[in-house]
């Protein structure tokens, strides 16, 4: 074969190989490459924001502060508490025993870990909410903790690729005049359902369904929580909270800085049990 002939064959083979999809080549090696998932539109993408949708029944845009009129423990989600699993009961009992001794058990928030849901919403700090057609952005002033409730019809992220967080991943949908928000994919360490009292852990199986209503007049919103976590308690843990619209404050930068606890002797005292 002449040089010209060999070059022609090489060119034809190269062109043929280039025409074979990469997936076929991978299959040929016994490794089926999964198709790349379609990239969803960002909640802030103009094409997503401008999609035709029914008008939202209400707009939560504003600053909200938990209603403390029921009493100083209005921020807590119990008592009553659900029946705990043996693992969670052990933590609860340890916390209660130390509480009677004037001590605090595993106060991770006090050591600057994020509060996470559900406490971040009720912890005596305002939450700024900005509602768009595709999502509600919620920023608690406390440590500027961010939460996004997606309203654009997306599903929860595949558990195999999701990055677990203390506020979880929230997906909402409208049911009549109620916004139903389903939150999953929580981090299951250093995450608690109470702070310094009922030491009930929040695990990776925690799921929180919130039924959110704006009450007549628009000055109060109500959230009915249904929380499940088979690792830590049996059945559904239910609680309802109200939040007042606060029109004369804005949220600010709030950080748990490394030197914060140096000047707060209680956080370094013998009262803290890890």
């Amino acid at each position, binding site marked *: 074969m002449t040089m010209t002939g060999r070059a022609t064959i090489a060119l034809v083979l190269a062109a043929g190989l280039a025409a074979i999809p990469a997936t076929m080549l991978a299959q040929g090696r016994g490794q089926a490459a999964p198709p790349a998932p379609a990239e969803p539109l960002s909640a802030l993408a103009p094409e997503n924001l401008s999609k035709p949708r029914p008008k939202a029944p209400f707009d939560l845009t504003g600053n909200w502060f938990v209603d403390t009129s029921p009493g100083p423990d209005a921020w807590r989600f119990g008592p009553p508490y659900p029946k705990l699993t043996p693992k969670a009961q052990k933590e609860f009992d340890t916390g209660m025993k130390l509480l009677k001794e004037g001590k605090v058990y595993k106060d991770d928030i006090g050591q600057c870990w994020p509060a996470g849901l559900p406490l971040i919403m009720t912890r005596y700090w305002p939450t700024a909410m900005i509602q768009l057609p595709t999502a509600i952005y919620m920023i608690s002033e406390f440590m500027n903790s961010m939460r996004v409730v997606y309203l654009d019809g997306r599903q929860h992220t595949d558990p195999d690729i999701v990055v677990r967080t203390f506020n979880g991943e929230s997906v909402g949908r409208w049911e009549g005049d109620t916004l139903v928000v389903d939150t999953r994919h929580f981090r299951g360490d250093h995450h608690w359902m109470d702070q310094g009292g009922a030491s009930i852990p929040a695990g990776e199986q925690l799921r929180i369904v919130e039924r959110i209503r704006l009450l007549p007049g628009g000055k109060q919103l109500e959230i009915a929580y249904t929380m499940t976590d088979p690792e830590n308690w049996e059945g559904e843990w239910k609680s309802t909270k109200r939040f007042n619209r606060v029109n004369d404050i804005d949220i600010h930068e709030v950080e748990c800085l490394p030197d914060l606890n140096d000047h*707060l002797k209680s956080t370094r005292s013998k009262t803290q049990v890890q």
Partner: protein
Amino acid sequence: MKKLIITSALVLSVVAPAFAHHSPAAFEPQKTITLTGTVKEFRWQNPHSWIEVMVPNDKGQEVLWAFELTSPTYLVRAGWKSNTLKPGDKVTISGRPLKSGEPGSAIFTSVMLADGRTLGERPARLGGPAEK
């Protein structure tokens, strides 16, 4: 120090939790102590401010007490400014001490300044004690 606490004015009052970033559970929920001393440092910052006060004990020794306040967001609404206190100011300050009796830490409830003004922490609508 224990004697100082016992001889301090004990006042019972129902207060809402002055929420720091840490748990309030180690502190007395209702009982307050009142101490008179000299301001060492007043820090105006988030997530909450603090006042360090040197308080003489019954042996004449100066003891450091740290009173933990809420965020300036609420303090402003209770009449505070960043320069309300400065080192060397004489104050009579009240707070909820640790249940354990360990001295030096208290959740702030109120302070009487040298000019006679008394300042609390936050209005009732933002989690402060109910107005009477």
